[in-house]
């Protein structure tokens, strides 16, 4: 499963693994809505992701905007793999959609 949501008492961690593309976009949206609705801190883990496509990037971007709007954080848990950083820069993003600038 490329997209999973781990919830502890205070944090929701969205974990993306392998190729995250349009095939899992609908599911990812549901999990993000669930995370936003939980009222907890949001974390994103992409350490084991190999590819994020446009649908994933825009979902992350929209979640980040929503989370900041409600005064909560959406931050990276762990590092962003090099190939993902490069791909995101190539796609014309100035920074990773979630808080931290790519290395």
């Amino acid at each position, binding site marked *: 499963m490329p997209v999973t949501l781990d919830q502890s008492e205070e944090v929701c961690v969205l974990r993306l693994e392998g190729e995250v593309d*349009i095939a899992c976009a609908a599911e990812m949206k549901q999990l993000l809505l669930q995370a936003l609705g939980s009222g907890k801190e949001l974390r994103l883990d992409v350490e084991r992701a190999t590819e994020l*496509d*446009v649908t994933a990037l825009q*979902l992350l971007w929209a979640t980040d905007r929503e989370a900041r709007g409600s005064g909560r954080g959406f931050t990276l848990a762990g590092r962003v793999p090099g190939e993902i950083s490069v*791909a995101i820069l190539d*796609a014309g993003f100035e920074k990773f959609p979630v808080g931290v600038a790519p290395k």
Partner: protein
Amino acid sequence: MSEERTIDKFKQTFLEEAREILVELESALLALNENRGDNELVGRAFRALHTIKGSGAMFGFDELAAFTHNLENAFDEVRNGRLQVSSELINLSLAALDHIKAMLDEAGGCGEADSAVSAEILVKLRQLTGKAEVHPADAVTSPPLAPPAIAVGAARDWQIRFSPGADLMRTGTNPLLLLRELKQLGSLQIKASMAAIPPIGELDPERCYISWDMVLTTSVAREAISDVFIFVADSCELTIELAAGPAIEQTARRTIEATAAAPKAKSPPWGRRASDTPDNATSIRVPAAKLDQFVNLVGELVTVQARLVEVAARREDADVAAVSEEVERLTTALRESSISIRMLPIRATFERFRRLVHDLARDLHKEVELTIEGADTELDKSVIDQLNDPLMHLIRNSMDHGIEPSEARLAAGKRPSATIHLSARHSGASVLISVADDGGGINAEAVRERAVEKGLVAADAQLTEAEIFALILAPGFSTARQITDVSGRGVGMDVVRRSVETLRGSIDIASKPGSGTTVTLRLPLTLAIIDGLLVRVGRAYFVLPLATTLECIELTRQDIEQANGKHVANVRGEIIPYIRLREYFNMPIEQLEREQIMVAETEDGHYGFVVDEVLGDHQTVIKNLGRFYRHVELISGATILGNGSVALILDPQRLVRDAIRAISLATRSLGKHADVRVAARPRAQGVAAPSVAAGTMACP
């Protein structure tokens, strides 16, 4: 499921467009063969290959992409001046092109691509490119190459806005791959705009909301940039503009490019798609079957409208009459516009023959140049679809038999290189398509001898040159052995004749010994709906095409008596022979006080057709008579009238030809001194006549 279907649909689009690109590639390769130093052509070939490769990979045709990649590499070598354009390269590229075509067919579910062919081509390609590297001296002996065409000089800045449409992602397209491909063309500054991303609750997860603003600094031409987006052009908004204030040191070509780009800058950049070419921006792609269905429906509408007119006339109700008139006006407009949609320029069909001429010239060891004129002439799609075969046979004939070997041409004081001229032009409601060569011409005497030998004409028959040439088209003649080297036309002529007849066209052959032959096909503009004049003969209805009808005059008993039984009328001093349809179709003779002569223009001059009554003009939806009546030449189809009865559509040209033929055959069989009456009762002379009983068909 529906997603899969959408992807399939896009694969289909790719296959179709790839075939179009192959046509472009073929024409570039053939032109390059003529003009080997032209780097613009090298660029065209390279771009075509590049697009097929890139898009093929995008849609999962990996094998196709890999194969094309090798060929693309070869042309990259050419672009960079490391490989020379040679006959070997062109022929190999053409073979590769055929193989790509086979691979596309295979992907489309018909045919199979032979992997052995693929391997053979790749090995040869490697030898070719390898040889170029091993022997750089080869390059020195040939004229030096100008800088590659695709790199037209200094780099310029292109401003590109790319905004994927709602469906782009669902079709399996990944916009990031497009951007990556764009990046390979030069240096790319890119900025994604997230402005359109809605709140996550309203966000459709399978839609791309991101758009991109880019500046590409590159020396490639505009087409190369738009080629990157070629397969998504219909599902995205795209603008490509030269950035303001680029370095100005321009060749004429670049100035043209810049001006071509200028109007686009004025048009609203957003909200409307301004794509790579003006054509793309204003046209849509529609499957041919849908178009056929549309025209069929319009045809049905025209038929129903005829019924409405009939009903309105019976009712004598002003309201109904007004509506009926309005509907008639709209139907006419709709009919005209639906026909115009089906009109296509004949260019693609003509251009396809460049390859045939190239290949045949190589096989026959002749030098032949193909020239094309009037390629923009428009014809109904269904006519164009059926033109390929007859034209191919005519060109083959010209190359095989018409055009002499170079030595013979030189000996005859001609240029060693022969010309085949393909041309198209409008003439009234017809289109004239001709294939002319400057070869040896037809040896009329030899054709005549052969015809006598085959029993087609009597040994002492007096034939005009046109009649002799027409013998070539006679069924059976085509299977004849070749008469002489110069005049053996006949192979495939039967196919030409039959195809042209199916299209309700006619063939004219002109030839001069020593200076060449011209075969002209006269074809109707459309096969679907025509303007006709509805006439009545007895209880049967007929339609004569309005386009060929000149006027309608009265024929009284007195006129007939004055002509001493000869079927001629005096129209303002002009003697016009006529055919009485009543007699022609063996219908019961009635002594009418007044009849009508419809005067029609035919290739053999003005002829009249005598009918009982002219009922008026009629929008005629042509229906085929069906297989059973296929051999009936004089009737080009049938149509359904407002009252539900059937009217047969007459072909005046064929009627006249048939009448003349009947008379001349009868004359020959009767001997030279027979009393020849123009257009007089062909049936009475015992000549086989149309076996359709017009009266019974028309009044079922």
